[in-house]
């Protein structure tokens, strides 16, 4: 299987800010690749380089076998892209927007018109199709932008946070669309903040932080990589939460994650059910009332939080 997207050592700085610091990616053809990372990790920068919108300062990348810098013009005919912010024309109607995109992909007038109607139906936008986009809701514009990326049925698709701002139904709809496209052989690279989405859609995942890939693999591999199980507990008060954090610290194999608002905590442990019993015993000894307790395998959320060290620190601070 050949790689539809290949990037080696991509570097990009904006003044003093290093957005990408030697990013490597390889995405096999016909698969979905998920780019995960906290805000500012460099996901959008990576997508913009791969879609020819930005030139890397160093490193190189090919998409569909074409170099993103040297063959940029030819490459544009072979990719579809939907950025983090909807790139639609406010003054045109939905149908006119997609027809224009079709013409600029040189599909011809008739095919552009047909394709626009197909996509408007597919994205559930037929009712609004002939109204200027200016009056559309954010989620509708987002869907129109996604439709724009699909106009030319490109073999490689880049979607930067495609489901941000979509309602649950539209999100499920987009997941179906992506699944269909991949079944037809399209390669998809998407970025997302939703672990559930990466878990469900992406064949392979790369976790990006500060411009580098800090972990990669399938969702299962990543979960195994951080290892262990999670004891999840909720208590009845703020004071209990602090006390419980102290009581369980010796059991934790990584940082304890605390959600102060929900009075919940997640303790990474090894040893499964034994660890759960041990944890409950320690809390009982401290006379801390437990509302709810359980054991689970790590989720991608845990992977993300553990690897990027994001979130935990901040939430713990609010407890202290």
């Amino acid at each position, binding site marked *: 299987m050949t790689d539809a997207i290949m990037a080696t050592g991509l570097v990009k700085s904006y003044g003093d800010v290093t957005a990408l610091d030697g990013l490597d990616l390889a995405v096999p053809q016909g698969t979905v690749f998920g780019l995960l990372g906290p805000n500012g990790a460099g996901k959008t920068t990576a997508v913009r380089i791969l*879609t*020819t*919108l*930005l*030139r890397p300062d160093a490193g190189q990348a090919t998409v569909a076998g074409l170099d993103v810098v040297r063959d940029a*013009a*030819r490459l*544009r*005919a072979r*990719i*579809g*892209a939907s*950025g983090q*912010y*909807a*790139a*639609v*024309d*406010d*003054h*045109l109607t939905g149908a*006119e927007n997609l027809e*224009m*995109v079709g*013409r*600029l*992909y*040189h599909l011809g007038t008739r095919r552009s018109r047909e394709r626009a109607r197909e996509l408007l139906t597919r994205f559930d936008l037929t009712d609004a199709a002939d109204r*200027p986009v200016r009056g559309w809701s954010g989620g509708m514009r987002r869907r129109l*932008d996604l439709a*724009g990326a699909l106009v030319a049925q490109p073999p490689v698709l880049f979607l930067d946070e495609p489901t941000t701002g979509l309602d649950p139904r539209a999100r499920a709809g987009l997941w179906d669309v992506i699944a269909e496209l991949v079944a037809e052989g399209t390669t998809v690279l998407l970025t997302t903040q939703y672990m559930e989405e990466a878990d469900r859609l992406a064949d392979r995942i790369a976790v990006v932080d500060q411009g580098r890939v800090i972990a990669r693999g399938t969702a299962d591999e990543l979960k195994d990589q951080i290892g262990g199980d999670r004891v999840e507990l909720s208590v009845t008060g703020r004071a209990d939460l602090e006390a419980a954090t102290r009581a369980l610290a010796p059991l934790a194999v990584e940082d304890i994650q605390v959600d102060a608002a929900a009075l919940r905590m997640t303790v990474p442990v090894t040893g499964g059910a034994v660890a759960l019993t041990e944890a409950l015993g320690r809390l009982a000894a401290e006379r801390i009332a437990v509302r709810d307790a359980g054991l689970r395998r790590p989720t991608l959320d845990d992977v993300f939080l553990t690897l990027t060290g994001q979130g935990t620190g901040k939430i713990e601070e609010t407890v202290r």
Partner: protein
Amino acid sequence: MNALKLAAADGLTIARRDALKIRRAPDLLGGVITLPIVFVLLFAYVFGSMISLPGMSYGEYLLPGIFVMTIVMSSQITGYTLTQDLQKGIFDRFRTLPMSPSAVLIGQTVSDVIMNLASVVTMALVGLLVGWRIHSSPGEAALGFLMLLLFSYAFSWVTATVALALRTPETFNNVATIVSFPIVFLSNAFVDSARLPGPLKPIAEWNPVSTLIQGARELFGNTSAAMPVPDVWPLRHPVAASLLWSVVLLAVFVPLATRLYQRAISR
């Protein structure tokens, strides 16, 4: 597809988009139609009766100047629209499409010259109503309108270049206003340049706007034997000089604007 055919096809697609936009944004169209009407009526009635010229009515003398003033102002729409579009998402879409790198500028300038055609026709009709007359042959008159439109097209590329250098609608508007008033008023649009004081006289005589106005006056037959033409080459051969100006502006600013556009979108 070769580069030229691609530029033409994509330019047409963008021009169509701009035309749709104009239809949806009546304020733009209103400016292009009503402002010229107001100009013609205002100048013809307010100043037309106050100033008298040897051998011809001031209204006849004035109207070609109003035509030129209006197209210089309307050509700024090209630049203004570009700065607005640069701030919006749609350019991100254009940038990922396999379209010609000149298409946006070609489309924008072509749709603006069509708007300029609409405003010139409006002004000519209103002019005829208030007593302006064409005293030349239909062929010369047609050449006169063509000359105006060619210049407006060339001038659109100038404003596009300025817009791409400045980038924001606010700065563009400020600069355009500060520059366009002297360009229009330091000319022979309202007064015979021979009557201007000292240093302003040569400026007005060599101003391309004066050249274009003189060219329009000759082609529409709005001249008088009692008003001698200053002895400078562009005013002695105003039609040739106007066409030359248009060609020179296009030769300089088409490549310049295209280069700046590519720079603006490849950040």
